[in-house]
């Protein structure tokens, strides 16, 4: 027999409600046999940003991609005006994805954590018929306060990276709590 026991250290005065289903079907919630914070949509940050306008990149120069527009940013954790970085305010593990479109040359992307290279992806060579898009993804732990994530691009020749949501984007979402 399970019992719902409020924590003695709880400080808030709000009411916790378990609402019944809106149908006549029975529904079951099974709480895992583990201790931790239950994650719900309200405390799992997610964002998607993109490049609005071309960005010029010098040859052979590892350059931070200035993602200056947002598709969504559920917790206001992405800075699209000054540092172009994701600083989640909830500790946990984040699935990080990025794609950068470019117009000539060959290159690769890197995920940077706290100003240092965390992961470098595959090298992609531009194709005159297909164009060029460099992908990268990984899972990164962030402490929920000071850790931040950025995307850097390296292109062999000087060129521009492409503008628009479908060409050059950066997204991340929490996949589990700390």
């Amino acid at each position, binding site marked *: 027999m399970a019992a719902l026991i409020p924590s003695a250290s709880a400080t808030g005065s709000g009411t916790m409600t378990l609402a019944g289903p809106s149908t006549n079907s029975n529904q079951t919630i099974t709480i895992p046999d583990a201790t931790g914070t239950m994650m719900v949509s309200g405390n799992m940050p997610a964002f998607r940003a993109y490049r609005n306008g071309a960005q010029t990149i010098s*040859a*052979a*120069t590892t350059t*931070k991609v*200035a993602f200056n527009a947002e598709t969504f940013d559920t917790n206001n954790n992405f800075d699209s005006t000054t540092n*172009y970085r994701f600083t989640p305010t909830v500790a946990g593990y984040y699935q990080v994805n990025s794609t950068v479109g470019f117009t000539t040359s060959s290159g690769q992307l890197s995920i940077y954590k706290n100003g240092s290279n965390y992961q470098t992806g595959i090298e992609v060579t531009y194709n005159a018929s297909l164009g060029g898009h460099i992908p990268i993804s990984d899972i990164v732990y962030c402490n929920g306060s000071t850790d931040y994530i950025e995307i850097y691009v390296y292109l062999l020749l*000087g060129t521009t990276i492409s503008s628009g949501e479908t060409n050059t984007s950066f997204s991340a979402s929490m996949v589990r709590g700390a």
Partner: protein
Amino acid sequence: MTLYEKIKTIYPSLEDKDFVTVIRLQNDSDGKGDFIAKWEHPTLARPTKEQLA
């Protein structure tokens, strides 16, 4: 002329792989431009400010 082009002018013998392995040029998109983040070339000295001016 970019920093990369200036360095290539000073040291024409540098190859593309050198800029991945022993030299890293970087730009943090903060308005300060390109800079040398790493110079670990075994024989060529890091260019001076005067050379890059």
